[in-house]
């Protein structure tokens, strides 16, 4: 009896839909999508460039290549190792200078990009290393320049890995936006924390969670479809 009451109590706590402000939910959703989308685009570009640099300089023996590889590699490892919640706090002075504010969705971007780009760069590098060496040799034998090699061989031939990599990165970025939200970047994480946790409205937390799940599923679906469409191997 008591048990049933408890369960019923929990259920009502989760289904108190009148406590949800749909307006705020919509705004928060937009903020999350905004942060995720912009950071994914920036991470994609930055990670691709870093990944190419890592790949290109890896086996090169000239002093510049070695120096470049080592410094990019060390940077990648450092940024990958800092827990995101600490990185975002650590970057506050930096964010204040380049964004002009330390709250709001845009203020979340520097930390999001800096934490995910090195991770994605590693994924890109791995993908590039899987490109068939014979195909590269064939392109060189045809007289392709380095730039042509990158644009016509490396990127198209590793595109499934590049796309699959950005899908994984995008999903973890959605997770990071929630953490950024807690310390003031807005979005669904912020909503769940301020309204759901601090005001004790479990329904708000639940709804925020469902929306985040929906976003993640959509990203995963698009990513998987895209990869299977372009992969002709």
């Amino acid at each position, binding site marked *: 009896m008591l048990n049933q009451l408890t369960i019923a109590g929990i259920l009502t706590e989760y289904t108190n839909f009148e406590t949800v402000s749909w307006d705020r939910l919509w705004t928060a959703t937009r903020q999350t999508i905004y942060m995720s989308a912009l950071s994914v685009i920036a991470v994609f570009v930055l990670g691709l460039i870093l990944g190419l640099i890592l790949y290109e300089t890896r086996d090169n023996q000239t002093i510049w290549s070695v120096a470049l590889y080592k410094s990019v590699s060390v940077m990648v490892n450092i940024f990958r190792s800092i827990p995101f919640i600490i990185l975002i706090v650590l970057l506050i002075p930096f964010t204040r200078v380049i964004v002009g504010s330390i709250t709001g969705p845009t203020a979340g971007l520097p930390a999001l990009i800096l934490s995910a780009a090195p991770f994605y760069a590693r994924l890109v590098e791995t993908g590039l290393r899987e490109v*068939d060496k*014979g*195909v590269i*040799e*064939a*392109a*060189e*034998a*045809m*007289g*392709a*320049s380095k730039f*042509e090699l990158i644009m*016509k*061989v490396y990127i*198209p*031939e590793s*595109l499934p890995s590049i796309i699959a990599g950005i899908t994984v990165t995008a999903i973890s970025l959605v997770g990071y936006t929630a953490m950024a939200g807690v310390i003031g970047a807005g979005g669904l994480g912020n909503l769940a924390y301020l309204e759901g946790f601090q005001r004790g409205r479990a329904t708000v937390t639940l709804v925020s969670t469902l929306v985040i799940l929906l976003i993640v599923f959509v990203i995963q679906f698009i990513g998987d479809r895209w990869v299977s469409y*372009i992969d*002709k*191997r």
Partner: protein
Amino acid sequence: MITLNKVTKTFLNKKQPFEAVKETNLTINKGEIYGIVGYSGAGKSTLLRMLNGLERPSSGSVIIDDKELSPLGKRELRKERQSIGMIFQHFNLLWSRTVLENICFPLEIAGVPKTERIDRARELISLVGLSDKEKAYPAQLSGGEKQRVGIARALANDPKVLLCDEATSALDPQTTDEVLDLLAKINEELNVTIVLITHEMEVVRKICDRVAVMNKGNIVEEGSVLQVFRNPQEDITKRFIRQDRETDNKETRQALTELKKAYPDGQIIQLFFQGDNVGSPVITQVSRQCGCDINIIQGTIQSTHNTPVGTLIIQVLGDQSKQEQALELFKTYPVQVEVIE
């Protein structure tokens, strides 16, 4: 067309220098099909890659069509490579591109405008006999079809030279023949000089005009295919030629031992015929003239690029003097005679 002058290539492997190619001289004439045969590690692959600058020689000069490659800068070398096609053992097609797009690839690099590119690629697709596969991806093609795409791609920029890196080693015997026929056709119709490296003497025999045998970084024997097949000098060359006849040999050897048991006093002779002589009635003439019986054990005709080569193993019966007489008689005919013990 192609001249190698004292070319040496040294690799620095873990600080231990390794000479892959040693002071090699080589001349390849315009329009010929030149084979370089050798076991893996003989340096033939390195030698081939020096012909288009994928490897730079450590010393010596590589001259293609009166142009020396070594002093060329990166950009000039890339330009030069556009007139040297190359095909590979594992085809090396881009999986992300269709047949048509793969063939367009070298044309894109050469800066040919798009409509011209597609026209040219279609021309090549029909040359290699893949007209119905234009939109297929490499993953949907068989090995032979992939190599045809590779050949079409290599020919896109009208090369002077076509380099073949073990181009048939990954193919089954029938497909190998088809690809070799295609290469011979291209050589004839487009007058492209073809340099191919292989470890299969069969490939050399079927389409090459001249051959070089490589061993441990050196060219140990060189000459026209006919001459090398008829009269190999080096042990390694003999081994390659024997390999080419391997399948026939096992059964023949068995037949030989049995025959030797049956006619212990008979002499076994191997005769080589070439060209027009393949059809001449040498056996019956010798048999009639010295009045001895001749047993035919085995006969093969192998085709080379321009002439058939025949081998006949026979056994001469009768007493010692007649056998010797027959042997002398054979030597007066235009055949090569070899006594087998």
